[in-house]
C-alpha cells in the first residue's frame, strides 16, 4: 500500500513541478507538502489517478503551530497554520496526505469542488480555526452557534471563551 502511495506521490510531483515542496514519510505514511495555489491541481491529479484513484477525502483538518515549543523535536513551520488533507483510495486501500502552510488571515482554496465531504470539514475548520475558504458554497459555523465570538481551537483562545459572561451564569 505504501509503495502505491509513493508512486502516486511521484506522479503528483511530476504533474505539479514547482507546486510541490517536498514529499516525506512519517507515522502517518506518505505526506506531500504543496503550495496552496497548487491544491486544486493536486486534487485533480490524485482523484483521477489511473493506477491509484483517491476517491475519498477521509478527513480535512488544520493545525495551529503558534504555541509549538522550540525544543519540541520537529521544527516549527514558518507559517501559523497547516491544512491537512487525508485522501484515501478505497479501491486500492492506499492513503496519502497533503499539507498546505497558511499564514494568519490567508484564505485557503476550497476542496468542495473535488470532494463533497470537504463541505462540513471546511466549515468545522472555519469554525474552530477561523480559516476562510474561497468559493466554499456555505461557509457558516457548524459546531458553535451563530454569533459566537472567537475560534476555540486557536491556541490563544481563552479556555472559558472571550465573553464568558454571555453564557448562562449562576
Amino acid at each position, binding site marked *: 500500500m505504501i509503495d502505491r502511495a509513493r508512486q502516486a506521490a511521484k506522479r503528483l510531483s511530476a504533474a505539479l513541478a514547482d507546486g510541490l515542496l517536498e514529499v516525506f514519510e512519517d507515522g502517518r505514511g506518505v505526506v506531500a507538502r504543496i503550495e496552496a495555489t497548487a491544491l486544486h491541481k493536486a486534487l485533480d491529479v490524485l482523484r483521477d489517478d489511473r493506477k491509484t484513484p483517491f476517491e475519498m477525502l477521509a478527513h480535512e483538518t488544520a493545525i495551529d503551530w503558534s504555541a509549538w515549543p522550540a525544543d519540541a523535536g520537529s521544527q516549527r513551520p514558518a507559517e501559523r497554520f497547516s491544512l491537512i488533507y487525508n485522501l484515501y483510495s478505497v479501491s486500492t486501500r492506499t492513503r496519502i496526505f497533503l499539507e498546505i502552510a497558511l499564514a494568519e488571515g490567508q484564505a485557503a482554496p476550497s476542496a468542495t469542488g473535488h470532494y463533497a465531504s470537504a463541505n462540513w470539514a471546511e466549515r468545522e475548520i472555519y469554525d474552530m480555526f477561523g480559516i476562510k475558504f474561497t468559493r466554499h458554497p456555505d461557509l457558516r459555523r457548524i*459546531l*458553535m452557534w451563530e454569533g459566537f465570538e472567537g475560534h*476555540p481551537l486557536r491556541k490563544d483562545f481563552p*479556555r*472559558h*471563551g472571550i465573553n*464568558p459572561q454571555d453564557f*448562562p451564569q*449562576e
Partner: protein
Amino acid sequence: MKDTLIDTSSQVVAGSLEEAAALVRDMKKPGALEKFVDWARMHSLWPIPFGTACCAIEFMGMVSSQTDISRFGAEFVRFSPRQCDLMIVAGTVVNKMAPVLKKIYDQMAEPKWVISMGSCANCGGMFNTYSVLQGIDRIIPVDYYVPGCPPRPEAVVYAMLELQKQIGRESGVLSSQERQREFWVRGIDGHGQTPKSRILHGERK
C-alpha cells in the same frame, strides 16, 4: 446486592391500598386533602430522561430489572415532556443544548421536579470550558443533585426516594413556580443560598 453503596434492593415504597384507605378515612380532617394529593404525587412519578452522555447508560440500568424504579411507582419513562413530572438530566449539557433543556423543562406540566444526575449536569464536571454549561441549575431549578461520574443506579434511586419524601412534605400547596421562587430567591433551605452555591462560594454574609 450486598456490595452496593445504598441497599435499595429490599425497599418497596410504592403506596399501598391501606395507606390510601387511611387517608380517605381521615378526609374530613383539616389538611387531609393536601396530604392525599402529596401521597398520590409521590407514588406516581413519571420520569422523563434528558440523557446526553454516559450517565444515560446508568439511567437505563436504573429503569431495568436490577434496580427497578417501578418498585417506587415510577416505571413509566415517557419521552414526551407533557406527560411527565420528574426530569432526570443525565449527562453533559453544552451551551448549544441549553435552550433545548430549558424548552423541554418549560413544556412539562405542573407540578414538576428535577434530579441532576452526575458531575456534568451538577457543575460541568471535568468539562470546565467555553462549550459546556457549568451546571444545569444555571437555567432550571434542581431539586436533587446526584454526585458521581457516572453515579451508580442505586445513588439515583436514593435521590428519587429522598425526592419522594420531599414531595410528601410539600403539603400539595406549592406549585413548581412557588418552589422555583423559593429556589432562586430564598434558597432551598431558607438561608438565602442554594446548597450548591454555599459549597462553591462559601457562606454569604
